[in-house]
């Protein structure tokens, strides 16, 4: 499994967002150059899950938000943290939609160079 979000970017329009699932998960919003503007999550307490959160994000970003993508993910909390840490590692800062408080609370991650996947527990007998 890739640790970076590798879903296809979709046009950030009311019509596309209306098709987003009502599930818990994480999402990213990007500008016309596909530069990240925001990384968010739809948690267990949100109304209408990803669809609800993305609908609010449409209002928040207006014309600047041109693309979005999402993952349905029951582990939305830790996945959100992971995406924020990856953004910090890759760009040296968080997207502008994220708060300074979020950056201050984040951990540090340095994925293996050239390997976006992950090691797995060994089944070798020792």
């Amino acid at each position: 499994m890739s640790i970076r979000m590798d879903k296809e970017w979709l046009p950030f329009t009311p019509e596309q967002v209306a098709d987003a699932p009502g599930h818990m998960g994480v999402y990213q919003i990007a500008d016309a150059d596909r530069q990240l503007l925001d990384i968010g999550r739809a948690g267990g307490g949100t109304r209408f899950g990803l669809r609800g959160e993305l609908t609010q994000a449409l209002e928040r970003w207006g014309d600047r938000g041109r693309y979005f993508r999402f993952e349905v993910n029951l582990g939305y909390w830790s996945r959100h943290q992971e995406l924020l840490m990856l953004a910090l590692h890759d760009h040296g800062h968080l997207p502008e939609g994220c708060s300074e408080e979020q950056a201050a609370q984040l951990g540090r991650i340095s994925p293996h160079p050239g390997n976006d996947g992950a090691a797995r527990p060994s089944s070798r007998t020792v």
Partner: protein
Amino acid sequence: MDFKLDEEQQAVVDNVRRFVREEVVPLEMGLDPDADELPHEDFKRLSDKVRAMGLYALDVPEEFGGPGLDLVTRAAMAFEMSQHRAGLYAPCYGTFGGVGLLHLFSGSEEQKKKYLEPLLRGELTSFFALTEPSGGSDPARAIETRAVQDGDEWVLNGSKLYISGADKADFGITFARTGSEKSRDNITCFIIESGWPGFHVRRVVHTMRSSHYATELQYENLRVPAANVLGEVGKGFSLASGSLLRERLPYAALSLGPAIRAQEMCIQWIKDRHVFGAPLASKQAIQWMIVDNEMDIRQARWVVLDAAQKADRGEPFRMEAAMAKLAATEAAGRVVDRAIQIHGGAGVTKDFPFERWYRELRIRRIGEGPSEVQRLIMARELIGGSFK
């Protein structure tokens, strides 16, 4: 056996119960159902209240500023502290403070000054890295991380898996093989700093516990000063074994807290909820689940308190501690499973805490030594020897 708490113990437990129900539970209403942290202002306010109660830094030895509680009181407190949604892994959201690395109390004076004291003051954070991709239940044989001495330094190479908090911590303790033979006598404990070259947090490891992830670490020619060997070279496993054994009892007691709360919620629910023209409480199928819950809770609670009492009397309690961990984690899993069944559709929603407890209790049967290892410990105590 008499497990009745004395007046002083009961007063402490009553205070903790009030704190959980009046301070912690109401705050949870406004948090994400998977949250395991409080907003900073709330954390500070609650933490100050705990200090005023004289209960801060619970598991810190008295000479280092801890409250010096006996284990029976500590276990009875733990039964209460986890009776909220996040309580199993974030009892009272950490407002009671504490220290994760009991090994450090066995360190040199220099190590205590550099690492332990700032840790106790809350100026540094720490992690514990033992498990590797090759296994965690039998670390003496599974550890493949190597440490080779080079002058005044040790050079570590290897990886660690399922490590909590390493991405945010300032330092941690870790274990590496310092001899060729795969035995307990070739494992050395090191204090390492996360800012040192060669220390990498390679990825987040997602688990059933959404709010709290583990990490995978890699040590790539990580150079550690010889002064950072904790204890003796080759004797890493002998450190703090007594303290770690004591830690198993609060762990067991915390596991039971959600079960106790779930049972309370079930009893209220079945009185209020009507089906086929009568309260759920009138149905024998439901009554029996309530009775089974109560038996599970009481048996496990008594086993935990029995172990705590033995420890407080200074008697050996290795087998009792293993039994307490096994009994409490497995009983709590059964109770919360029944609570979900009793609550029906509501039981599996995030409107109630049961689904979170259910997921997190499943981990509890593996963390801190799986049920099978606890049975192994008990079997060794009962029969003697390891029968390899």
